[in-house]
């Protein structure tokens, strides 16, 4: 029972990191309509920056904040390339984000080499109801909860957040009232970079990060974001937690080499069931 609880808590932490990646995808897609395949890159940039800055002797806290800001700037630059030119279609922007991801490989290899890097996180572990959980995992859960609460407040309570929602809801109307939709798109990319960066600095102490770790991160993040239809942050969070728990359970019970396939298969089943229920509901209401 305690092993199950351990896997569950660790799985929730893994799911939280996935949720941060996925929430960046959702924010960018909601505002710009673009599926940003460079989202995993933001986490990698932040992870590698943290490793370097801590290596240079910068203290914890300052290193992580600087790394997250570097990811936000990477997000902004990606946004400039993807949606900076007026009239770029979401499909063209998607291709641009793929290109940015490939370009980032070259830049990261030049700056950090091709070997995985890690960074020290919070040491130690705590025991909850007989289950042992690393303190770093608790930090991931706490920061994710704070990040989602901050996102909800930002989009639900602030004027700027509502302007971003307005761009997502009706871009033409947003232009009618004078909102610069392109600038809001760039802001969304910077916010996506920030969220990806937070995921990166939290994950780096748990697993080594290298230039190509973005593939695993984006596959998980994309699966969770699609679960939330790329627009619903809370459903995305639920999907990410499900994915994280399924992966950790699979690994914990001896299917470590197939953990991603098992988790994605489970997501597929849940989505098919969901689609079936929605279809039945719409037929009843028709």
């Amino acid at each position: 029972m305690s092993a199950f609880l351990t896997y569950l808590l660790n799985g929730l932490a893994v799911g939280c990191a996935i949720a941060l990646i996925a929430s960046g995808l959702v924010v960018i897609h909601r505002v710009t309509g673009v599926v940003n395949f460079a989202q995993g890159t933001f986490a990698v940039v932040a992870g590698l920056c943290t490793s370097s800055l801590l290596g240079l002797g910068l203290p914890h806290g300052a290193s992580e904040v600087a790394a997250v800001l570097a990811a936000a700037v990477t997000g902004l630059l990606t946004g400039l390339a993807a949606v900076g030119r007026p009239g770029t279609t979401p499909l063209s922007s998607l291709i641009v984000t793929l290109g940015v991801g490939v370009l980032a490989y070259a830049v990261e290899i030049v700056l950090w080499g091709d070997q995985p890097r890690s960074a020290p996180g919070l040491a130690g572990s705590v025991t909850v109801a007989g289950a042992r959980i690393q303190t770093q995992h608790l930090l991931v859960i706490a920061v994710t909860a704070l990040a989602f609460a901050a996102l909800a407040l930002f989009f639900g309570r602030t004027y700027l957040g509502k302007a971003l929602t307005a761009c997502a809801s009706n871009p033409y109307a947003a232009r009618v009232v004078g909102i610069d939709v392109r600038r809001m798109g760039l802001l969304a990319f910077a916010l996506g970079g920030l969220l990806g960066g937070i995921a990166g600095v939290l994950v780096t102490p748990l697993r080594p990060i290298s230039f190509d770790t973005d593939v695993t991160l984006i596959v998980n993040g994309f699966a969770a974001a699609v679960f939330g239809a790329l627009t619903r942050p809370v459903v995305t969070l639920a999907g990410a937690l499900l994915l994280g728990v399924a992966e950790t359970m699979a690994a914990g019970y001896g299917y470590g080499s197939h953990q991603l396939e098992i988790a994605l298969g489970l997501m597929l089943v849940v989505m098919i069931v969901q689609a079936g229920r929605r279809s039945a509901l719409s037929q009843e209401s028709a």
Partner: protein
Amino acid sequence: MTSLRDGRVIVVEDLVVAYGTAVALDHVTLQVGAGEMVALLGPNGAGKSTLANALAGLVEPASGTVRVGGRAALIPEGRQLFPDLSVADNLALGGWRSGERDPSAVYDVLPRLAELAGRRAGVLSGGEQQMVAFGRALMSRPSVLVVDELSLGLAPGVTADLAAHLAGLNRSRGLTVLLIEQNARLAFELCPRAYVLEAGRVVAEGESAELAGDPRVAGAYLGGSVA
């Protein structure tokens, strides 16, 4: 109000707007004076909404000029609200340019909006949505209001109510109005002067009473009868 010259607040000269190879506005020239209410009539596809968008700065002219004295606000065709946001949020975002966040002044003009403030805009009736679009435009404190199809899809009573508000603002505050309408009776009733746009060109202009008496205009827009 900031007028350009000779008391005019809208001056469009020789305007050409094209979407690719399709010419939407073909050398259009029109003027609207400060405090005037002017109608723009025309069938579907005449280029009326393109002209509205050009006045709001949403489309780039291929050639010609568009000048507006002061701030122009657009009530777009089909209302174009933010359906997931509340009425209060829709109004607040209307003040994006002016920096106005408090909708009290709009509630004074359109008290019904105060009652709807907490409702989601997407669930309102067509008339209520048009009222929100009206209020949202007023939040930018405009000197010129461009109204694209005020009556579209609305019951006559609702249209009359909104038209009365529009005329009231024109009288009390000197708000300049360019009313783009397919309902020629309403347009001629509200606006002393009108332009007729067909296939991207101005084909007639003048006093509304004269235009209503023109057999060609009456035939095309008033069902053949002279108003």
